């Protein structure tokens, strides 16, 4: 408590200093994060939202790594808990249900992908094919439906069996070390099936209903596009990727989308709480060292070996909402204004996060999205470039005075289609895109009595308060870690959670448990069990960003 008080005093001093800088409007209604009353002793939440990994793809053999010579090695601490993976189900490695003729030439047991093979092709992560791969709970048609013979990179297999590959602690070394020292869930799922945009919208609102589509280059709502599906009550649900309507970087040759519901940014704004979405490539005024600028800024890496566009529009969820978008990517009026409402409207570049952190202006809630080269998405990124981004950001946070009040969540937008052996479908849907239990049928195993295109009565309500279609879930199981001095140590939680649990935690900590209409926030489990708020918040773990190995640590 004494430290809280000190921080409050210094923050007030900062406000006084900045008050004379003619940016006072930037602070309209925004509260200093450290002086806010919160349910938990967490004053800063940082969500590092990565791309496209299933749980078994990253943690299938945790905590046992192969440790070939020349690779960063990983040896588990005594007493390390084992999650629900191939270690606890060894038959999955030798008699996997996907090693069957229905998968054709792609039939295979799971196999290790070496660190030298970190750059793989991307799999199919569409809503319908993911449900088909789940095959009525048998989890046995991944090569057939989500497997993609890779042509990107040299680490690819020209065979749909690639979808069964997994990395171990010699490649995703940093994440395994974080799991050793902080908390991880082995029961975290995509809120729904589907790709990036679906996951991104879910992590900020917990719901994808209330979508409006626009034909390429048009400003007239016309929702009959391939990324939206009829919700059964006259509206549309987003189930696929499309660019946010109005973003200056969005496609002019493909349909775009807006969302009409509320997101967590709306709730934080109403409460005067600072927040921001920080994404690589968002600042259009910057020029990269290769001469690229504007929406075309690009970066390369040793592993990918090609230039990849930094900014990916359909990974920026707040741009879908009229209330939270920054269509022209306007810059914040100052570093001190980051997190508060101004022309930037809480939408920033990743560089702005680092600037704000170093200036002692870390917002209450920050979502981080790496430049595409570091976002983990197969094809344009890889686990090693992801590791460099994640470790650098977490190292920076741990070295800041804010760390003792900070929690970092590492979560993912979708599975990429990579195999994982667990299913947990709770919310039904009978849209034209559904296929889990049969044609146009998705829901808990054994469900019957569904009528095509009619939302089942037990489906979660959408933005108009009625049950809606197009949100079958939970989807694939995804990695989820909590890194904080308040996190449990070397702990694996089994509370069933989803991307919407992030929304729920923000609501619980800062907003007195307020909920969003139509959202999975109320039904997704809490992440509280991954914390121990009674411990002394001193733990740090500094890692090598390239190797993922431990540089130093305190308990």
């Amino acid at each position: 408590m004494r430290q809280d008080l000190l921080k409050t005093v210094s923050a007030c001093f900062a406000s006084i200093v900045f008050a004379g800088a003619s940016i006072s409007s930037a602070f309209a209604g925004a509260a200093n994060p450290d002086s806010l009353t919160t349910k938990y002793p967490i004053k800063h939440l940082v969500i590092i939202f990565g791309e496209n990994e299933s749980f078994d793809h990253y943690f299938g053999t945790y905590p046992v790594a192969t440790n070939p010579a020349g690779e960063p090695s990983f040896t588990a601490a005594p007493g390390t808990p084992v999650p629900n993976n191939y270690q606890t189900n060894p038959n999955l490695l030798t008699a996997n249900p996907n090693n069957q003729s229905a998968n054709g030439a792609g039939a295979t047991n799971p196999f290790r992908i070496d660190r030298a093979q970190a750059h793989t092709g991307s799999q199919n992560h569409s809503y319908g094919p993911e449900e088909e791969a789940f095959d009525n709970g048998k989890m046995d048609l991944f090569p057939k439906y989500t497997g993609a013979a890779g042509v990107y990179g040299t680490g690819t297999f020209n065979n749909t069996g690639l979808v069964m590959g997994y990395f171990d602690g010699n490649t995703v070394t940093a994440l395994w070390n974080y799991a050793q020292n902080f908390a991880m869930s082995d029961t975290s799922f995509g809120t729904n099936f589907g790709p990036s945009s679906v996951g991104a919208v879910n992590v900020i609102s917990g719901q994808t209903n209330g979508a409006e589509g626009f034909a390429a280059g048009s400003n007239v709502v016309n929702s009959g596009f391939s990324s939206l599906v009829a919700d059964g009550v006259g509206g549309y649900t987003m189930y696929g990727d499309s660019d946010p309507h109005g973003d200056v970087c969005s496609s002019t040759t493909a349909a775009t989308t807006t969302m009409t519901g509320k997101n967590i940014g709306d709730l934080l704004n109403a409460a005067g709480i600072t927040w921001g979405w920080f994404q690589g490539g968002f600042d259009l005024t910057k020029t990269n060292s290769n001469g690229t600028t504007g929406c075309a800024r690009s970066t390369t890496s040793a592993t990918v070996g090609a230039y990849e566009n930094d900014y990916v529009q359909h990974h920026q969820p707040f741009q879908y909402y009229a209330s939270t978008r920054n269509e022209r990517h306007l810059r914040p009026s100052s570093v001190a204004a980051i997190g508060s409402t101004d022309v930037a409207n809480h939408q920033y570049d990743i560089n702005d996060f680092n600037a704000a952190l170093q200036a002692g202006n870390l917002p209450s809630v920050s979502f981080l999205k790496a430049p595409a080269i570091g976002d983990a998405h197969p094809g344009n990124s890889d686990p090693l470039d992801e590791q460099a981004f994640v470790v650098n950001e977490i190292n920076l946070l741990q070295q800041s005075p804010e760390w003792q009040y900070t929690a970092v969540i590492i979560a993912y937008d979708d599975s990429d289609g990579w195999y994982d052996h667990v299913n947990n479908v709770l919310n039904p849907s009978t849209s034209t895109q559904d296929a889990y239990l049969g044609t146009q049928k998705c829901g808990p195993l054994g469900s019957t009595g569904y009528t095509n295109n009619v939302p089942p009565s037990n489906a979660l309500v959408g933005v108009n308060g009625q049950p809606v279609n197009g949100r079958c879930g939970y989807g694939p199981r995804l990695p989820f870690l909590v890194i904080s001095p308040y996190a449990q140590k070397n702990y694996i939680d089994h509370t069933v959670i989803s991307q919407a649990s992030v929304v729920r935690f923000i609501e619980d900590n800062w907003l007195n448990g307020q909920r969003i209409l139509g959202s999975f926030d109320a039904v997704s489990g809490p992440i509280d069990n991954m914390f121990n708020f009674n411990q002394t918040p001193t733990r740090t773990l500094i890692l090598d960003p390239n190797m993922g190995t431990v540089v130093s640590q305190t308990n």
Partner: protein
Amino acid sequence: MKNAERFTAMSTRVKGLRVSAFVLLALSAPLAAASPPQNDSGSPVQPLSPRPVQATGLSAVAQLGRKMFFDPSLSGSGKLSCASCHDPANAYAPANNLAVQLGGLDLQKSGVRAVPSLRYHEHTPNFTIGPNSSIPDFDPPPQDAAARPTDVKTASVAKADRNNAARAAAEAKVPQGGLDWDGRADTIQDQARGPLLDPNEMANKSQSEVIEHLRKSAYADDFRQLFGANIFDQPGLIIDEALFALVRFQTEDPSFHPYDSKYDAYLAGKAELNAAETRGLKLFEDPKKGNCSSCHIDKASRDGVFQPAFTDYQFESLGIPRNRDIAANQDPHYYDLGLCGPYRKDYAKSTSYCGLFKTPTLRNVATRKVFFHNGVFHSLDDVMHFYVEREIHAEKWYPKLANGDIDIYDDLPVKYKRNVDTVDAPFDRQKGDKPALNDAEIADIIVFLKTLNDGYKPDEASSAAQ
């Protein structure tokens, strides 16, 4: 300006194969001199498979690939390895002067195309029509659409048109990337599959035969350790792992991309070009003279990450003379149409692509014994004279028809001769015109091309230049 613009376009679409950091930084990779291997009786045999190059710091997978690369037991004959044609002592190209190499079960069969060097393929983009898109995050994953342009003379318009919009439209139809002369392999990994199964090369009858060779190899246990004890029971997987290992050797070992030519030293400010080399470079770049760098890119990317590849990875039809030394060409109805076949089938009906081949890198070109896809030329002097005199003195390069006319572009059926580039310098001349380059200028360009040979030793060169 044209070169700069073209380069910008190229550098932003560079796509595909990764290269490890130490490879990018590596500037020297001395090759161990290959000594002839001994046969069972201890006497020297024909050096079909040179000894492995010495390499350190390779990953376990790359070391496995290295063993495979030099292993003749992977061929149907038991006598050919990758290194038999891709000789490390000759910039991973053939050491002999045969237009096409001998192989097959009896080592007497020959293919139809010259063997390219395996150097400097690490940034080759996947094959596409038009520029690559860089973010593959769409649903479902993007497929290569087999475009069927019919009446667009893509190859020549692309480079000649000074109007940017028209050129951009034409560029959108230009095939580019991929491995092999026709770009049919998307990645180096895919390329490695071809020679193993080609009846004229390593001549394995099937992938199963390759797997059997691997199972009996001295490094079979390496496979089990790296890829799992059951790897030999997973036929689809082991082939891909084996090909990956071959690629990993090529990717990690600096000898495949040493970037240690005199020109590299010149770009790094560590060497100066002499007068003839400087003149040669100027002519190489001059759009009205050699105009070479419009396709053979000679500048690094702006941030210095990608050194000049000396290719834009695009396809061109140059009307190369028919090579009657190639057995297949004894059939007058047989033509090697590159992108249109016979190896590739997917663009067989795209008439504007018939006769197009991929532009190769010019690094180490002065060490090559044969030139172009059919190896018809044996000296750079001939190549350069062909470039500047193809239109002016067609009779020097092509045979006469029965009626006395010159059978220009005689390695193409009449209907595809229109695909040949006649608009870009130095091809934009007609009979009676002066060639774009005179003999002295050609000599200067060849002197410059020799600065692209790997293995430049600053001390020796400076004393030799005195």
